[in-house]
């Protein structure tokens, strides 16, 4: 026998599931939303996404090679996904240098300075987005409006659905008058509205989300809990006073709720590892999101909510453990 016999401990077989395959599943799930984005915003969506992906990968390479002098991990697919998710959370008419700055923050600060893939506490793409939102509030909140901008780079900017509602309510308007200016639920579902690159079509995002659940990359716990909790909370307010509060359907179909619930909050690294923990985490995100949307200064709040709950993940993991087999049952012998 030429080759030596391998001695290793059991198990001797593996499921053939790899981190890379997990990452690529996430990638495939994002394709429908990306196509909608290109259809709605045209070439600018393509530019935005390409710039974000390339700068994320390049920054990861440069930092690992020259600054950290560690193994280069750009092929594991995680930088690619950070790039896409960051792009999906940005308006398509954002100046290119801002996209690059956002990528640097996402990869350099949120990911690599914490130790790289698996060690980051906060969702890198969201850190990038929130950093840009805080630094460049004007550019970050002027979105191109849909369809008429298709294939034109000089976009007419408009506000998002939730932005219109928030402003309207501030000036004392009622939901009945505001509702004439906002897209219908069907338009929200299909994505024919204004907003960040990837948050457009709830339907396309749902499609990808279901794919992720079927492929067992994520479980239903986080997305479903977020959406149900948001629906209940906004539903209560809406029932109490429909003139002052938008309906749950508007809340769920706009403001990146679906994108956040299925793709951002479920980020494996920055979410809890037990199903009980996931539910708690998701309830927290939904509550904070609704509170920010209804009572805060920002019209949208899921990015902040996810980042805030990211900070609680270690604590959640510590206190919400799976039920141990045979625990809390007194043994008669011992």
């Amino acid at each position, binding site marked *: *026998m030429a*080759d*030596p*016999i*391998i*001695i*290793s*401990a*059991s*198990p*001797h*077989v*593996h*499921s053939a*599931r*790899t*981190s890379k*395959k*997990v990452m690529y599943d996430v990638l495939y799930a994002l394709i429908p939303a990306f196509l909608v984005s290109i259809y709605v915003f045209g070439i600018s969506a393509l530019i935005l996404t390409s710039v974000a992906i390339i700068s994320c990968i390049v920054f990861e390479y440069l930092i690992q090679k020259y600054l950290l002098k560690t193994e280069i991990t750009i092929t*594991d697919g995680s930088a690619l996904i950070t790039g896409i998710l960051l792009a999906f959370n940005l308006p398509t008419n954002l100046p290119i240098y801002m996209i690059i700055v956002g990528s640097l923050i996402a990869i350099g600060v949120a990911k690599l300075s914490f130790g*790289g*893939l*698996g*060690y980051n506490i906060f969702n890198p793409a969201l850190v990038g987005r929130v950093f840009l939102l805080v630094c460049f509030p004007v550019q970050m909140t002027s979105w191109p409006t849909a369809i008429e901008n298709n294939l034109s780079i000089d976009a007419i900017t408009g506000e998002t659905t939730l932005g219109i509602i928030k402003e309207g309510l501030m000036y004392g308007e009622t939901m009945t008058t505001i509702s004439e200016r906002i897209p219908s639920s069907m338009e929200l579902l299909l994505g024919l509205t204004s907003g960040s690159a990837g948050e457009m079509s709830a339907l396309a995002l749902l499609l990808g989300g279901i794919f992720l659940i079927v492929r067992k*990359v994520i*479980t239903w716990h986080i997305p479903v809990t977020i959406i149900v909790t948001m629906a209940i909370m906004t539903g209560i307010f809406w029932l109490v006073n429909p003139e002052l509060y938008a309906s749950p359907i508007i809340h769920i179909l706009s403001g990146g709720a679906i994108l956040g619930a299925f793709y951002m909050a479920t980020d*494996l*690294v*920055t*979410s*809890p*590892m*037990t*199903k009980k923990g996931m539910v708690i985490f998701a309830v927290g995100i939904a509550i904070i999101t609704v509170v920010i949307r209804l009572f805060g200064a920002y019209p949208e709040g899921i990015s902040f909510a996810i980042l805030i709950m990211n900070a609680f993940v270690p604590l959640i993991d510590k206190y919400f*453990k*799976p*039920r*141990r*087999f*045979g*625990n809390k*049952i*007194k*043994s*008669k*012998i*011992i």
Partner: protein
Amino acid sequence: MLKTFPKGGIHPEENKITSSKAIKRIPVPKIVYVPIAQHIGIPSEIIVEKKDKVEIGQVIAKSGGFVSSNIHTPVAGTVTKLDMIVDSSGYKKQCIVIRTDQKNESNFEVPDFPLKKEITMDQKDILQHITDSGIVGLGGATFPSHVKLDLKNDNKVDCLIINGVECEPYLTADHRLMLEKAEEIIVGIQILMHALHINKAVIGIENNKKDAIAVLKEATRDDKRIKVAALKVKYPQGSEKQLIKAILKREVPKGGLPMDVGVIVHNVGTIYAIYQAVQYDQPLIERVVTVTGKNLENASNFWVKIGTPIKDLVAEVGGLPEGTRKIVNGGPMMGKAIKNTDVPVTKGTSGILVISEEEASRQESKNCIRCGQCVFVCPMGLEPHLLMNLSEKGLYERLSDEDVMTCIECGSCSYVCPSHRPLLDYIRFGKSIVKKLNTAKN
């Protein structure tokens, strides 16, 4: 809905290539190597000397205590030496080497025992026979069977569970035995029910063995006390605790035994051995072994004498194929990789698995991406990623607090980990240290 255990579990590729292969006999080996530590507990004490002549079935090492077992010679012949040889644990172990007497006809008779349904012995005799015959758990755990049957008077055991799950991929030894010796197994169950005064028995079989389920249902039609439960295919259902949970919804308490929830579990192979011991006074000197692997020419199931070197089995299936990189004693999930084929078959050897290049090597371990798969699949409700971490960092107190000792080492966590982290390796290591610390404390 088929029954199964509720928490965790995986479904690896079944690869039951040998399930339609009838159990064959292999030629009697010229030399047998019989280790004296074939069971969990105290090793047996050798009672023969070099050059002694022994008759088939004679006791050559006697039980070293209560949790121990007799060992009988599988062949008639001469003890050539008492030696230290490497067994499947990878360590050198005391072993009795016997050269088969080629002229002694008892070695070559094919045992033929007609079905004997009538149970004539009383409780005490039955238990004595089981003890004397050196019967241990043949599912792989090799726990001396008489210990499980030694019930105190105040016991509340009301159900006997027969483990015919065989959830390990590739292995088909129990499957074939159930098909070929169904009636005998039922008598074996009746013997135990008689001896233990139990009125309920359930045979648990996974639903990928529909033929065995049908055969046993047919065999139990006259005895309403014995039921056959078809179980959903899910690893590690053959684990005692998971099996009890699946069939009776009873949960063995942490650190407890099946007896604590009124159950005794025996493997079908063990039941057959008990039948042989009680009805025909046959000691445990042979067992069924599946010899399998994707590239083997004639993978099949065999009746093998204890002490037969594995190379004899490998020769019987057409030799080691080109590119063999791993030989496993047992199944792919919990079996032990062995160094060479000189290792002998022992009472716990349920299969020999030959693995080729592409499946044998492990992939490089990457960072944990916190996907939670290990937590989802752990049937004991543990957090393997955390246990590995604590073990790596040497935080043994916390490791103990996180219930590391309840790990059943099924390997589901390492199996699913997309980052190929050696979770179970670290958990085993941590367990061994925690065990030492606990012993030191007491």
